[in-house]
């Protein structure tokens, strides 16, 4: 049985992609609550020059992507602190610039994969590393839920209650960098940001409590991956965009049940 698991590329990629989606779905809850949907979308573009650098230097592109995303997270933090404004506009410019740079730097044979993802190349070691990292991301995020929520809902009350919202936000940005770096392998730099947003946006339509919001977002994210990969294998299309479109379909269905 275990040999089968390790041998089948489909099982490996489904496992890794689902694990990543679950972590992304959980983080998405806080992105949506903080009105950071566009930031996250643009952030994923920063991964591209990182991937290009990794490929050029001959190191694992994951680490290149993570390094660039990590640096970009600090940039977001700095911009937010200095201007006290939603960072969307500045972030949009910087991150689109890095996408353009990344496209120029990425060797052409790898470009399509970097932009839209590729499921076929994941190794068994890569799969289990992805699963382990996803579990770590979920655990860390659950542990900082209270401080994150204080920072979003009532920063002043959080301060009085000695909640460490700033630290939690920093940790959150690192988790976001990690999950995006993991996900670009499957859905690509162009679409990974969206995978963190769509399930959460759909879940928000149908949840009444925060607990439901988190749970449903995770379920929708996993469902989008499974539906998308199923569609990709049935119709022979690229899996990345199929996953995103599955997420959009889920979102459209939830609109019918939206609570106000």
């Amino acid at each position, binding site marked *: 049985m275990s040999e089968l698991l390790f041998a089948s590329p489909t099982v490996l990629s489904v496992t890794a992609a689902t694990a990543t989606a679950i972590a992304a779905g959980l983080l998405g809850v806080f992105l949506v*609550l903080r009105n950071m949907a566009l930031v996250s979308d643009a952030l994923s573009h920063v991964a591209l020059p990182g991937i290009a650098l990794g490929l050029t230097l001959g190191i694992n592109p994951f680490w290149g992507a993570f390094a660039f995303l990590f640096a970009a997270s600090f940039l977001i933090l700095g911009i937010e602190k200095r201007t006290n404004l939603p960072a969307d506009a500045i972030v949009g410019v910087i991150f689109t610039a890095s996408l353009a740079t990344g496209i120029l730097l990425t060797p052409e044979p790898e470009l399509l994969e970097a932009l839209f993802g590729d499921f076929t190349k994941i190794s068994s070691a890569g799969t289990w590393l992805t699963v382990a990292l996803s579990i770590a991301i979920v655990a860390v995020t*659950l542990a900082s*839920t*209270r401080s994150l*929520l*204080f920072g979003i*809902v*009532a920063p*002043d*009350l*959080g*301060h*009085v*209650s000695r*909640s460490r919202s700033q630290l939690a936000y920093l940790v959150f940005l690192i988790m976001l960098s990690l999950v995006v770096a993991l996900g670009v392998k499957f859905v690509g730099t162009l679409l990974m940001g969206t995978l963190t947003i769509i399930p959460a946006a759909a879940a*928000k339509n149908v*949840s*009444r*409590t*925060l*607990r*439901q*919001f988190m749970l449903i977002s995770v379920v929708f994210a996993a469902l989008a991956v499974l539906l998308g990969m199923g569609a990709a294998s049935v119709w022979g299309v690229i899996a990345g965009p199929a996953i995103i479109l599955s997420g959009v379909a889920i979102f459209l269905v939830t609109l019918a049940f939206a609570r*106000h």
Partner: protein
Amino acid sequence: MESSGVKAILKVENLAVTIEREEILKDISFTVMPGDVIALIGPNGAGKTVLLKCLLGMMPYRGGVHWAADVKIGYVPQRFQIAKNVPLTVREFFLLHEKKFIFATRAKTDGRIAEALSVVGLGVSELDERLGHLSGGQVQRVLIAWALYDKPNIILFDEPTAGIDIGGQETVYNLLHTLKDRFGITIILVSHELNVVFRYATKVVCINKSMFCTGAPREVLTSGELEKLYGESVYYHPHEHVKS
């Protein structure tokens, strides 16, 4: 009072705040004894909210803010805008007090939440209600209950009635009365309503960037003093409060 051996719950000494070279507050000194109801008054932009934030340690300041060792502070903020569509229930909002947050055991926390809600006249039927669905007056009461959850011995209110209709204001002030009389909670409140200050405060601290006057309401709030503090517009209360 100090001579009777009762220790001050808060001592503020020569507090000053400068933001970007602008002096926001200077020379603020006053003492709060257990059981006091202190009203912080002053015109818009006098620095009342800034002073509260200094007391809570949310802002850098010079001078001294000395809390009693056994102090347990509750805080009711001025404005609490929560998007109506954030899925956060009243129960989950209270659970922010708990380290385990929404993973805390309901059996342990529901009783405490119900107890805090009953003080402000809300029932457990509101527990599963979304915070964003409550009326302004209800949110204000939930916020007061939220501050009571950890059983504080002093509560800081920043304009408890801002944005609440007159009927709601009455309720909030009756509540203040309850807090003081039933639980002996010391209160510091920022208020624009002078009639409230007269009715409820045991001591008034008037500031306008610096210390203006302090003492019992009837001693310090003479029409002459008020005119000096507020200028001639003392009877004019605009509805839009600018955060000071």
